[in-house]
Structure formats: structure tokens, C-alpha cells
């Protein structure tokens, strides 16, 4: 991969993370303005299963993709979700 492609990938991933952060803040307004994108949803951010299914529903609407139930356990952080979304959209 060339350097400018890597930079582009990072930029896209950052955009997705920011979009996910915004979606999550809509669901849980008590969350801080920002937090490390590697923070774990359940143990570090205190989100529950209902928050997660709602986030996934918003992601499905936002990116026009269907996500199977079996994929949900992998969504443990913004980073993990962004990686999944980028892989799906690039594929």
C-alpha cells in the first residue's frame, strides 16, 4: 500500500469513528464529549446490551448495511466497529 493510500484509509477510519461517536452520544447523552476510541463499551463506558443493539441499528441505517446477530459480540469499542464498517464498505 502506498503512503497516500494509508493516509486515506486512516482518514476514512477517523471519519467513521467520529460518526459512531456522534451516534452513540445521541443514544447515551451522559457520555463525555470525547473518549479514547479503544474504550470498551460495557466495562469502560457502562453501556448495556440495549445501547449496543440501538447503536448497531443506527449504523445499519447510516451505512445501509445489514449486520447479522452473530457479528454483535465483536463490537466491543469504537475501533472495533469502525474496522468492521470500513472492511464492509471497502469490500
Amino acid at each position, binding site marked *: 500500500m502506498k503512503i497516500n493510500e494509508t493516509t486515506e484509509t486512516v482518514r476514512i477510519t477517523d471519519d467513521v469513528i467520529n460518526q459512531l461517536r456522534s451516534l452513540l452520544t445521541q443514544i447515551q447523552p451522559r457520555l463525555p464529549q470525547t473518549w479514547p476510541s479503544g474504550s470498551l463499551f460495557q466495562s469502560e463506558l457502562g453501556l*448495556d*446490551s*440495549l445501547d449496543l*443493539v440501538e447503536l*448497531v*441499528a443506527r449504523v445499519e441505517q447510516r451505512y445501509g448495511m445489514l449486520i447479522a*446477530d452473530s457479528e*454483535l459480540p465483536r463490537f466491543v469499542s469504537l475501533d472495533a466497529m469502525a474496522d468492521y464498517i470500513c472492511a464492509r464498505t471497502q469490500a
Partner: protein
Amino acid sequence: MRENAGMTGDRIGEVAHRVVITGIGVCSPLGGSATEMFRNLMHSETALRNWSDLETEGYRCSIAARIEDVPGNPLRRGGTLALLAARQAVHMSRANLPINTGVYIGSTLGESLAFERAAEGESLDVREYGIPSITDAVRQDFAFSGPAQSLATACAAGNYAVGAAMEDVRSGRVPFAIAGGVEPFSRLSMVGFTRSRAMASDTCRPFDMRRSGMMLGEGAAMFVLETAERAVARDATPLAEVVALGLSCDAYHPTAPRPDGSGMKRAMQAAIDEAGLSPGMIDWVNAHGSGTRASDAAEACALRGLFGNELPIVSGSKGSLGHALGASSALELAVCVQGLLEQTVPPTVGHQTPDTDGVPCTREPVRRPLRWILNNAFAFGGLNSSLLLRRYDS
């Protein structure tokens, strides 16, 4: 334990007012009567199947247990099912019901289709399609003017309705009651449960280690309740005695149960305490057993916590009937009564292997003396209910 002593004293004061079921009416995807539904359960049949209309409409899950060929106005499907079940129950009871008979009906969403149509822009007053509309339909059909209750306690509503009827019959407030639960098939519920990721992709497996969710059902079950003395005096046949309804609330989460099952356990304990029993006297628990990871795990904790290693027989019917929401505990009450009459617990369709620390359920019919039964039903909002039944002994 002075409190318990006082409760026992209250109960003794009520021995003269034993409440019995003398009629059952059932409209279910597994049969149009309690006996037919039970017979199909005994053969491990399931009403869950794929529906091409739901598939065409793009639902994430198109498997459900539905009743075909329900007559009448689709917007009044719930009312129709309730009426058919109520007429059947009254016919079986052979009672000439007076006008002050009480009507107690539980449901989750009432006439869901009417709410959907209104949201799509059709000119409908949704207030005419809520649960009270179903209660009123039954009252009007029989020209009753007695007390009416429309219990909106979601998936526990059937148990709540029968419990409320039991209280009013026992206290003498009404001479007879028609009580039960009803839920017409609801596309809104299909969307809600699939999008909440609560629904299985293939089938419902209560308490099985491979379970992945619930599946939707529909139906109605209604019961005629009266005192045992009245039933005997008019030469009717008491089918089972309704003894107590134990209730609690998790006060924990909008949809998820308290994981340790403590709220569910308190509901079962409350029913047992009110009757002055000990857990070891329970012969059979018809579990809520929705098939979701969280609910079945919590119910298993509750059962283990209450009964220890001396578990009674446990069964569940949602692998056969689906989860009929507000009707489910009433349909399953019909299963319990039929099981008492036949002294047989039906198999738990969908259940093969329990979790390591879970609860094994029946996998084939179990025939043995059955006297005391708990019928569990839990609901969104953390509502827990457990209805205690006894085989009728004169």
C-alpha cells in the same frame, strides 16, 4: 415469622372460598381447543414455520406461529380471538352466567394492526382499539355489566388477569369471572423483537445451550372461574383450582431481566408463601422459557435458587406455540390445567441440552402424580408473575 403466620391465618379464613376453573377456551396456532393443543404438544409438534408474506415484506425473521383463517375484521383480530375463546370456555363450563360476571383480559398491544394503520395515515381513533376494546367486546357479547379489568402487563398479562379474577371471585365481588389473555399477530412486534435482537433466526429452544432467542406467536385463552362450592352446587366439573398469584418487579432494566433471577424467584416464593406451602411441594413448573439467552439464564438461576437440587419437573411451551406475548401465560395456563387433568407434563419442544448450570426440561411426556403447579410468566419492564394451581380435590 409472624407475617407468614398472619398470611396463613388469612388463607385459612378463605378456605371456604376456593376458586376453580370450570371452563377453558383456546384459540392457538397449535389447535382450537385446550385438548387439541395439548394433544399436539404431547406429540412434540410445533406451530412455528416460515411465512412467505413476511419474507416478501422484508422482515429480518419470517418464522412465527400464526393462526390461519381467523374470521372477521382484521382490525379486530384480537377481539375475535378473545370472543371465540370466551364462548368456548363458557360453553364448556355449562354455566348460565349472570350479568354481574366480571371480565378480566390481559394483552400486550391490543389490536396492533389498527395502531399500525393509524401510523400509516389511516383515519382511525386508536383509543377504540386498545386492550379495553377487547374487554368490552367480550362484555357486550354476553351482555355483562359487572366489573371489567384490562390488564396491560405485557407478556405476563394472562397470569395477571386470571389472578385478578381469582381475587374478585374469592372475595365474593363477582359470582363468576371470564379471564384470560389475548394477542393478535403483530407486525409491529416482529419489527420490535427482531430489531432488539431478541428473536432467534431459526427456532425457539427453551433452556437449551444452543438457544438464540424467542419466536413470535399469537392466540387467546379464556377461563371461567367460580367458587368450588358454586361449581359443585350446580353439578359442574372443576378442572383445577387457582390458588395464588405471586408478583414482583426487578426494577432493574427496561427489557433485560435481573441476571441473578432474584425477582423471578421472589414471584414464585410469594405464590408459595401465600398458600402456606414449601418449595418441595411443587410438582411441576411451567417455565416462562422464552428461549432468549438472558431470560432463560435468569429463570434457571431463580429455579435453582428456590428449589436447590430438588428441582420439580420443568417444561416450556414456546418452542411449540411461539411467544404469544399477552396471551402466552393464558395459553400455557390451559396447558397446565390439561396437564393436571391428564396427570402428564408435555415435552419441551426445542429443548435438548441445558446449560452447564442450567435447568433440564422435559424432552418427552412425563406421567406422574401432579398436584401443585407454578405457571411462570415474565415481561419487559422486569415484571415477574407466578400463578399457583392445584389439582382439584373435592
